[in-house]
């Protein structure tokens, strides 16, 4: 198990060590040269001066910060509606969600671009955030539907008998019971919006509006002698997600329904 973990940790470790190498030097020859004898922070300085990395990180924070809460709202609403629904329509909707989850993004590039163009939204962040209005991904809606489905039926019935409306049922009764699911979706959607490359590439124009993944692609072109710069920028944009992961650990261990992330 430790060996397996080491295999996965190694590339991350390399990403932490490699930026300490002075940029401009020939690439290291073998593992022995990977650890720099005289560590330098020059590659981080270069990453921020060669491209507007700081600005792009703020833009990414803006997009992710808005998109993730909306994803949680819409995915949990849709999940709850699906749980409360009965009969064949429910089966049809679940089948449709599974089917939608299999549609590759490239298949909808052009229709989406035309749609946002007609709405006059090209060059704004709306096309990047828009998926959040639909639950972020069909899978997130299904995750919530499964989590809510595991809550005993009596809980819903009791709440409704007490006069709970739809919003109150969602916010006061069901959402607190599926905290680990919410934590998982917060993380998954944050990773998806944070690292999204194609949407910002297609929809954004001005350099001041670009998000962090586009900067990484740009630095990748600097050539092998500047890999420390490329990896330095990669490290900087990976850190917020790592921090988010550790911060979400407490939520994963929700006491209400046991330890697992599906809420039971």
């Amino acid at each position: 198990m430790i060996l397996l973990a080491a295999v996965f940790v190694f590339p991350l470790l390399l990403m932490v060590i490699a930026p300490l190498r002075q940029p401009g030097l020939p690439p290291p020859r073998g593992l022995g040269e990977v650890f720099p004898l005289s560590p330098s922070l020059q590659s981080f300085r270069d990453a921020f001066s060669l491209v507007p990395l700081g600005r792009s990180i703020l833009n990414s924070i803006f997009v992710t910060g808005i998109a993730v809460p909306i994803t949680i709202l819409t995915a949990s609403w849709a999940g709850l509606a699906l749980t409360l629904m009965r009969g064949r329509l429910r089966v049809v909707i679940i089948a449709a969600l599974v089917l939608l989850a299999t549609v590759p993004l490239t298949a909808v590039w052009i229709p989406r671009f035309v749609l946002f163009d007609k709405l006059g939204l090209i060059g704004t962040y709306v096309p990047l955030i828009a998926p959040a209005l639909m639950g972020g991904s069909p899978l997130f809606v299904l995750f919530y539907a499964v989590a809510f489905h595991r809550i005993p039926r009596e809980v819903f019935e009791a709440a409704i008998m007490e006069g709970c409306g739809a919003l109150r049922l969602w916010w006061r009764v069901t959402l607190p019971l599926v905290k680990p699911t919410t934590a998982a979706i917060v993380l998954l959607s944050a990773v998806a919006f944070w690292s999204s490359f194609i949407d910002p590439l297609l929809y954004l124009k001005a350099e001041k509006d670009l998000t962090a993944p586009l900067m990484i692609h740009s630095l990748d072109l600097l050539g092998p002698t500047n890999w420390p710069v490329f990896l330095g920028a990669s490290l900087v944009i990976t850190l917020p997600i790592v921090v988010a992961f550790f911060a979400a650990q407490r939520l994963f261990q929700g006491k209400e329904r046991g330890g697992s992330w599906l809420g039971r």
Partner: protein
Amino acid sequence: MVRTLISISLLFTIVCGMAGCGGGGQKTAEGGGNLIRLQAFGDPAELDAYKELIAAFEKENPDVRVEFIPVGKQKDHMAKLTTSFVGGQPPDLFLINFRRFGQFAEKDVLEPLGPRMAERGKLKESDLYEQTVEAFKYKDTLTCIPQNVSSLVIYYNRAMFQEAGVPLPTADWTWDDFLVAGKALTKDTNGDGKTDVFGLGFEPTLIRIAPFIWQNGGEIVDNQENPTRFMFDSWAAAEALAFIRSWYSEHRIVPSLVENKSEDHESRFARGGLAMIPHSRRFTATLRGVPNLDWDVAPLPQRKHKVTVLHSDAYCMAKESTSKDAAYRFIEFALGTTGAGIIAKSGRTVPTVKTIANSPVFLDPTQKPASAQVFLDSITSMRRTPNIGSWNEIETRADPIIEEWYFTEGPPKERLGQELNEATVGLFKGVSP
């Protein structure tokens, strides 16, 4: 339920409002067609040169504003470009490689710039290298105006040549000289039975093997203007292909497929693990940053003919542009003394404007390579691949087959030309210029 719906609508409105503020809003060619959008690709230093160019242009033309759309990789540039053309939002101006411009010209979405050039007269075809002008003609009309002309040359480690006592490459060195040098410079320096320094790093792709076929008097396709199939079965082409394959299968002067994938040629050359590498001008920028590397450039070796392959990018204008006059004024400025000088200073490209290419701005004696003149001398012996609309797709399908053929141990099972023709069935139907 009604409350829920109202909440959703309210939320949607808030989100759209906020996101709209953050993005800066839709930018169309308002203000009498004096806003132009330029999309270009390149590394950060190259993109900085464009920003400097735009600032200089705007200073001289205060009535025009240029919105720069920078993209890193060429692949991403193409994805953004094709989507924006299909979606009806193309940039007014963009840079594109001659091997990729055919697909746009064929769909009639480009504004032909030749007639406008003749009408305005400030910039003339004769100011530019004719090999690049010819490459961007579609149906005999100059469609895009070339910005750079980076031919394929051999970068070599001069110190390695001198240490091994191998004569330095000359302007007229031959295939035999090339092979002798490659063999002499391939070395196992620590005696462990594994090669540590390779004589040559070669990327087995169509664009790289083409000049060797042409040098031997062969052709890569049956008809340069109206190609219908690959022509690798001629004796001249077969001999050139056998020469290329011998570097790995017989002489082992190039890294194997595994070695190739574990460390790319550029890194290997930069750290001194490779003596020679065919590359375009772009590699100069990387090497200038490597301390203590003694390197220079030489023309490709020759056989029956002296030939190299064209690498060139041009400014193209979208037919849908509503700021055509302003956009053309930008091209005139970019290819004028000030504009072309700014781009040439970045060192990444060879200017297509003859006066700039032959000036100290490009041939800077204080900068490597010492033999920068080689880039200009190679221009006269340039040939290009056909510019039919499907050429990019043809290359994409051909390259993996060429790589497999190149690294096959022993004699290849299939003939390369036959395999390539089978893999590209139906793609050669494109309308030719």
